[in-house]
């Protein structure tokens, strides 16, 4: 799935809250559904369990509160190497 609108509302809301979250909750995981910040958690598993328990099986943003965004690297997919033919 390549979709610029995945969790668009949640990501926008996180961007609004980021500076405030960094002051008090850096390193924790923020749980946002729609425009609601449901809390910050020590682990992403705890955030997911809370989100599912509160709202059910819905899209949600679980994001580690960090200054810099982590870089994801999967060269086999990026370069299409898994199914390359010579």
């Amino acid at each position, binding site marked *: 799935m390549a979709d610029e609108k995945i*969790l668009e509302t949640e990501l926008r809301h996180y961007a609004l809250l980021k500076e405030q979250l960094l002051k008090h909750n850096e390193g924790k995981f923020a749980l946002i559904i729609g425009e609601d910040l449901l809390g910050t958690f020590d682990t992403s598993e705890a955030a997911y369990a809370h989100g599912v328990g509160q709202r059910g099986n819905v899209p949600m943003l679980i994001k580690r509160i960090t200054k810099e965004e982590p870089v994801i690297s999967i060269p086999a997919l990026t370069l299409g190497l898994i199914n390359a033919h010579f």
Partner: protein
Amino acid sequence: MPIFNTSFFAQQIGVPPQQPAPGMLLQAGPILPVQVQVPAALAQQLQATNQAIPTPIAGIALVDTGATMSAVEVTVVQSLGIQPVGTAVVGTAGGKQMQAVYPARFSFPGTGLPHIDFSSLFGASLLGISPAGGGQPLIALIGRDILTQFVLVYNGPAATFSLCF
């Protein structure tokens, strides 16, 4: 400590003993059987609300030491009804793309390895790839996020690899 060993042998009728086949390991890569299922928290929520828990989907996982994050075939998690929990930006030949990230549980039937609950798996397009040259499709990549918990031994000349938890 659970250990999963796989050996690739050239099987020729009437030619004992079996000989290691490095070329088969080269072609297939370090693969193992995997079942993808809904994460434990979602299974509990479905059970509590008297909803059916989707049947796990079986396939093949490939250990990919180049990947910082493990990945799952996106149509598999979608068919299990799992909703996204985040996004990741990745570079592709066509430029940077935002992709959904999903939680899921992986189990490895017949290997003795424990199941793993992922809080974030990259939703990728892996279908159509059959690393072992037939049989089940590739539906997962095991990246370095999980290898932080495992010992991986890849022995090319002996055509074996081992995963120890």
